[in-house]
C-alpha cells in the first residue's frame, strides 16, 4: 500500500439543529493518509474547521472498533460505506483514491430525526428494546455454568443474532426505512434460547407494536438491510420475526 497522501473532496450534510433546514457543504483535504480511518479523516477536518473558528461537523462515534454501534454515516449512498460487514469506524481511507469526492449524509428515517449534521437520535431503538428486548430473571447468586444445557446449533444461532450492535444501518438502507432486521435480530436471539422462550409471545407482540409506534416502515423484502449490516445479520432474522409474530397472534394464551 502506498503511503502517499491523497486529496479528498467531501460533500457533507450540515444541519444546525433538529428541524432546521440543512444543505451540503464541500470541504477539501489535501493530505489524507491512506492509513487513517474514515472517522480520523473527519477528525482532521474538524481540527481544521476549529482552527478557522468554524463549527465542527457533528457525528456519532464511541468505540471506534466496530462493536458499539454509535458510528452512523451514509457514505456515497451506502450506510457504513462501501465495504461489506464493516462499520464506518472500521472503514479506512485506503479504500479511496486521491481525487475522490465522497458524499456523507446522516441516517434518514422519520424515526431517527437528525440532531445536528450527521448525528441522529436513535432513541426509537432504545424504546423498542425496552418494550420487550430482554428477559426477566430473579437476581441473586450467579447460576452455575452449564446448568441450563443449550444445543450447539441454538447457541450458535442465538449468538449470531446477538451480534447486532443496534447501529440502525438496516433502517438507513431500507427503501421503506423498516426496522425489521433489527427487531428480528433481537426477537430471534432470545427466541433461540430457553431463557427467552418464557416471554416469547408478549415479546414479539410488544416489540412489533413499539416498532410500528415509532414510525418505521414495513418490510417488502428488498434485502438491503442485511446487505449493509456491519454484523451481517441474515434475512432469516425477519423470517423468524414473522413466524414468531404469526405464532403469537394465533396462539390462544393470555
Amino acid at each position, binding site marked *: 500500500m502506498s503511503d502517499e497522501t491523497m486529496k479528498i473532496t467531501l*460533500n457533507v*450534510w450540515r444541519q444546525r439543529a433538529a428541524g432546521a433546514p440543512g444543505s*451540503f457543504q464541500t470541504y477539501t483535504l489535501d493530505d489524507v493518509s491512506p492509513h487513517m480511518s474514515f472517522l480520523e479523516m473527519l477528525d482532521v477536518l474538524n481540527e481544521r474547521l476549529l482552527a478557522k473558528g468554524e463549527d465542527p461537523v457533528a457525528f456519532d462515534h464511541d468505540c471506534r472498533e466496530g462493536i458499539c454501534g454509535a458510528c452512523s454515516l*451514509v457514505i*456515497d*449512498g*451506502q450506510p457504513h460505506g462501501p465495504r461489506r460487514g464493516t462499520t464506518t469506524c472500521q472503514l479506512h481511507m485506503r479504500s479511496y483514491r486521491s481525487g475522490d469526492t465522497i*458524499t456523507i*449524509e446522516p441516517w*434518514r*428515517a*422519520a*424515526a431517527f430525526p437528525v440532531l445536528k449534521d450527521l448525528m441522529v437520535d436513535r432513541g426509537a431503538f432504545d424504546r423498542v428494546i425496552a418494550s*420487550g428486548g430482554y428477559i*426477566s430473571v430473579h437476581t441473586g447468586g450467579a447460576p452455575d455454568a452449564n446448568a441450563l444445557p443449550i444445543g450447539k446449533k441454538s447457541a450458535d444461532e442465538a449468538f449470531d443474532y446477538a451480534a447486532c450492535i443496534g447501529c440502525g444501518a438496516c433502517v438507513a*438502507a431500507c*427503501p*421503506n*426505512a*423498516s426496522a*425489521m432486521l433489527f427487531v428480528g435480530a433481537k426477537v430471534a436471539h432470545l427466541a433461540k434460547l430457553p431463557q427467552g422462550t418464557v*416471554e416469547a*409471545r*408478549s*415479546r414479539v*407482540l*410488544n416489540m*412489533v*407494536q413499539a*416498532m*410500528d409506534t415509532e*414510525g*418505521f*416502515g*414495513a*418490510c*417488502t*423484502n*428488498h*434485502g*438491503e438491510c*442485511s*446487505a*449493509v449490516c456491519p454484523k451481517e445479520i441474515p*434475512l*432469516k432474522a*425477519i*423470517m*423468524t*420475526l*414473522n*413466524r414468531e*409474530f*404469526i405464532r*403469537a*397472534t394465533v396462539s390462544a394464551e*393470555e
Partner: protein
Amino acid sequence: MSAPSNLAARGLLNSTIGAKIVMALTGFVLVGFVVQHMVANLQLYAGPDALNSYAAGLKGLGGGSVVWLGRAFLLACLGLHVAAAIKLGNRNRAARPARYAVQRFRQTTYAARFMLLTGFVVLFFIAYHIAHFTVGVVQPESFSVVDAAGRHDVWRMVVAGFRDPLTATLYVIANVAVAVHLSHSVTSMFATLGLSVGRYKPMIERIGPAVALVVLLGNISFPLTVLLGLVHL
C-alpha cells in the same frame, strides 16, 4: 412482561407485519387464480369447442352460483390486497420523509422497487379486462356471438378481440406488468410468511421469476398468435 391488551382490537391490518400477512395470503389466492386462468386459457389452442364448453361448464357449476362465489371471493381478496398495499405504501413513504442525495442499492431489484406501480397497472388492467371479456362493453360486436351449440362463443370473442393490434398490444404490456409484479411478489410472499429459510430458500428465490415467466409466456401467446395469424377465425 404482558402482551399488548389492545392487540385483538387493533386487528391484523393495523400492524405492519399483520398487514403484510394479509397481502401475502390474498396475494397467494390471486396468484393461484392468475396461474389457473392462464392454464385454462391454453384451451384456446384446442379450438372453439374445447374453450366454449369449458366456459359454459364453469358458468353452469352449481347452477351458476359457484362462479359468483368465486368472483366475490377474488374481489374481496383483491380489495384487501390493494387496501393493505396502499396503507403500507403510505406508511413506508412517511417513514423516509427526507430522501438521500445519493443512494446506492446492493440487493434490491426494479421489480421490488416498483411494486405499487406495477400493482396499479395490474388493477387498471383487471378493470379493463373485465369490461372487455366479462361485461362485454369494450368490443360489444364480438362479445355477443353464440356458437353452433348455442353457447357463448368465447373462442371467437377472444380471437376477434386480439385481431385489433391496439387491443393486443395493450394485453401484452399489461401482462409484462403482471409478470414484473409476480417476479418479486411470489418470492416475497414466502418470505413474509417466514418460509424462505434453510434448504427451501434457494428454491423460493427462484419461484417468483419462474412463475412470472411461465404466466407471461402463456398469457402473451394469446394476443401474439392471433396477431401473427397462427390462430384465426
